[in-house]
């Protein structure tokens, strides 16, 4: 695989999408995860809203699909993260975990007027989306298991788990809606989750620090 990183100066003329933002492992994890979220959200609606339940019916089937999609939910991320193939995903996770003071300030204004420039591979909103997704998987899986295998818990805890599962589900719908809205209004970002690559111009504009890191790595290891 050849890279334009070492040869081409940035930001001049029309550039090919030469910079790898998400490798195949990351993209597979994202889309497998998205598919499971889609199944869970689609089946959740008639399980929760009685007006839809009346139309759709087939509750046992829906519940079974919802259960198994839920149990499978952590698999794509864990498999991509824990294997020798997960180096890039692990690296991105470290980026998501690391927050500068500027990024916190950026989030306060949601990147509006007067917000400091953010230069990491992911902007603070994207980081928060990633953290939320991780957290919500843990919480939904835990409370979902409590609802399925309820007999090991007191009635009060079962009701608490139901409450948490419902509230977090509402949050999931809001966040996923926002995530999709940002994706379709930012085609360059979305393309990088489909085809993997962005242009250096894009990186210079949105993620200058990441571009610098990639350049440094490329100069040390031209095969990258």
């Amino acid at each position: 695989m050849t890279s334009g990183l070492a040869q081409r100066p940035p930001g001049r003329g029309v550039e090919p999408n030469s910079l790898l933002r998400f490798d195949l492992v990351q993209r597979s994890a994202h889309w497998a995860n998205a598919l499971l979220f889609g199944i869970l959200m689609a089946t959740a609606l008639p399980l929760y809203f009685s007006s839809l339940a009346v139309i759709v019916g087939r509750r046992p089937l829906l519940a079974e699909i919802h259960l198994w999609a839920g149990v499978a939910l952590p698999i794509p991320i864990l498999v991509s993260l824990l294997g020798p193939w997960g180096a890039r995903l692990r690296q991105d996770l470290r980026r998501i975990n690391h927050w500068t003071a500027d990024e916190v300030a950026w989030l306060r204004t949601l990147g509006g007027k007067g917000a400091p420039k953010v230069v990491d591979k992911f902007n603070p909103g994207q980081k928060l989306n990633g953290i939320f997704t991780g957290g919500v998987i843990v919480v939904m899986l835990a409370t979902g298991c409590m609802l399925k295998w309820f007999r090991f818990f007191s009635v009060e805890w079962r009701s608490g788990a139901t409450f948490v599962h419902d509230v977090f589900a509402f949050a999931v719908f809001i966040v996923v809606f926002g995530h999709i809205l940002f994706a379709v209004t930012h085609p360059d970002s979305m393309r990088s989750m489909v085809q993997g690559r962005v242009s250096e111009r894009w990186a210079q504009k949105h993620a200058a620090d990441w571009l610098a890191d990639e350049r440094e790595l490329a100069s040390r290891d031209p095969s990258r």
Partner: protein
Amino acid sequence: MGRRVFLGMVALGAAGIVFGTKAQNFIESTIGSGLGGLIPGGGRFRIYSITGSFPAIRPSKYRLEISGLVERPLTLTLADLKAMPATKLVKEFQCVTGWTVPDVHWEGVRLADLLDHVGVKGGAKALSFESYDNADSESLTLDQARLSDVIVAYKMLGAPVTTEHGGPVRLYVAPMFGYKSLKWLSAIRVVDEVIPGYWEQNGYPVNGWVDGSTADTNPAYQ
């Protein structure tokens, strides 16, 4: 920082499991169950059915058959049930899986009254209930059936019981989890031993008292 937000979310979830019920009750008692009902998880029925769809029974065609170890086997219409002394209850509906709906208005005929009406023969020990969905079934001991808050309900939530809630007529067993309150009640047979119903055959306790007891009798609800 990222890790802290992540752990914060998980901690919030854990706190919700332990204190969520109290928080929900507090919300409902301070701002009322009307608004509380809009909050996720607050007082909302989940519509369960065993089969793929709901049996649609026209109220005029509804029949309740009472048979088995009785002096006078009967088939009652909805009008027959409504002609009997009505019992009104305002009680919670608690599902075994955790969700709960407080202050549900119920109206119907006490099972005890129905049993007196048909006359229970000696040797009878239990009741076996059947549903119009041809799938669900339930059981109660005679003592459980005679509790004052066990009714054959034709009104629920202040209106005739809707199809999705098991109308026109369903069972409501207040002291037990929701699965005991069989929907689309079609027949009551008086039998000489407890015949575990559909959910019991799938692992739920035969005696599903809301306080967690699984004994035949429960002094807490006498």
